[in-house]
């Protein structure tokens, strides 16, 4: 029994403490968080933008016969957004990442930027559909009440529709960000030194998989638990109007 524990302690020392391997994991953790955070921001901005374009088109142009120049532009933007969502949701994120790294960033090989952009663009497509669903789920009467007070379309969206929609889609958005955080673990494929890549690196040097894998699993778990905690808190704060 003692031999088993001393064996474990040796393994832990060899995989984590020795040669400052833990610093590699720390470095990987920082990269993972950096990618996830930046990609989330891109995803939110892109997703809301696309959702606004699509729902504006859906609400204002459906069944409308005469079209102004602005309407035509909106229609074209809507089509582009539709293609964006179809392509991004229809291909694996790893393939998108490799295209970004090996083709788009072929000359610079800036892995970090390629990863942030890939995951951000990928997340944007999912966020867009979540938010659009949230906007369309708001009762039409809310829209009409705001317009009847004299608010224009834009202010109706910002003051009345989006706050309600955001509250409704927050659980789904949170889910998307949790998925995104964990998905960054494939970035190692293009030699980005994130958490999983670092664990793999340690394994290839020490020929021992146990501690590096268990420890990064725990790190991911803790990150997700922390993220969930803050999302819950935000949800509870936004819910104060339904009693």
């Amino acid at each position: 029994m003692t031999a088993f524990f001393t064996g474990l302690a040796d393994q832990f020392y060899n995989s984590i403490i020795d040669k400052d391997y833990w610093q590699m994991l720390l470095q990987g953790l920082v990269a993972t968080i950096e990618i996830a955070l930046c990609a989330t921001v891109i995803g939110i901005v892109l997703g809301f933008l696309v959702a606004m374009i699509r729902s504006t088109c859906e609400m204002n142009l459906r069944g409308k016969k005469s079209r102004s120049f602005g309407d035509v532009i909106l229609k074209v933007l809507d089509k582009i957004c539709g293609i964006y969502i179809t392509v991004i949701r229809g291909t694996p994120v790893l393939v998108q990442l490799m295209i970004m790294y090996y083709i788009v960033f072929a000359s610079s090989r800036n892995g970090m930027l390629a990863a942030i952009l890939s995951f951000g663009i990928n997340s944007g497509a999912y966020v867009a559909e979540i938010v659009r669903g949230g906007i369309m789920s708001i009762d039409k009467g809310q829209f009409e009440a705001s317009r009847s007070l004299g608010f224009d379309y834009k202010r109706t969206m910002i003051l009345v529709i989006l706050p309600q929609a955001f509250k409704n889609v927050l659980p789904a958005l949170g889910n998307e960000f949790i998925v995104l955080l964990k998905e960054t673990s494939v970035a190692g494929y293009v030699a980005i030194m994130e958490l999983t890549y670092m664990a793999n690196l340690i394994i290839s040097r020490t020929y021992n998989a146990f501690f590096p894998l268990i420890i990064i699993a725990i790190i991911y778990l803790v990150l997700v638990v922390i993220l969930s905690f803050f999302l819950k808190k935000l949800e509870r704060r936004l819910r104060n109007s339904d009693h």
Partner: protein
Amino acid sequence: MTTNDVLIKVENLHKYFGDLEVLRGIDLEIKKGDVIVLIGASGSGKSTFLRCLNRLEEPTDGKIYFEGVDITDPKTDINLHRQKMGMVFQQFNLFPHMTVLKNMTLAPIRLLKQSKAEAEANAMRLLERVGLADRAYSYPSQLSGGQKQRVAIVRALCMNPDVLLFDEPTSALDPEMVGEVLDVMKSLAKDGMTMAVVTHEMGFAREVGTNVIFIDEGVIVEQGAPETFFDNPESPRLRDFLSKVL
């Protein structure tokens, strides 16, 4: 009579939903202080007509003049004119994520550029008038249907509108709450507020209406002062309708 008294003038209004012609040429004048009551069977087009007045429905053809301005002209800024036309909906449509007070002060602060204090003082005065001052900091989900509708009415009043449009304001209410909403509307009418009301409340039409209008199949079939309208209806269709609802 001078034309200055005419607040809303509708000329030959047509509205199609796809191939279905819902409004088939409606002409109407609403003067300051009028209480126009629109009645008719469901699907007759009365709600659509009301919603055309502030262009929540886009009229297909015809003209609507509001305070002398043709608001069907695409070049007019409809948002400006809507500030002067309050609307009250069947489903109340209060903003659920805001308190009663915030519901009422949102538009005056943002659109009329009132100060927060000014808008809130005005809102509280109106809430007191409808007996809901103690609910100022409640959320809509905490109110009964009748209370919600009274809030919806005073929310519209906060914009100091020149006319109030009511789209079946009591149809979604439990029977015991209809009275409290009608009382508010009656007191508004007494104060000289111009109103256009789509309703099934014949008692209200008779008591408060200055002009009752019967719409059927997208046209005005008959209109008149409530006494003659209800006691001596001319057209067979109106007689038939009244026999069913009275």
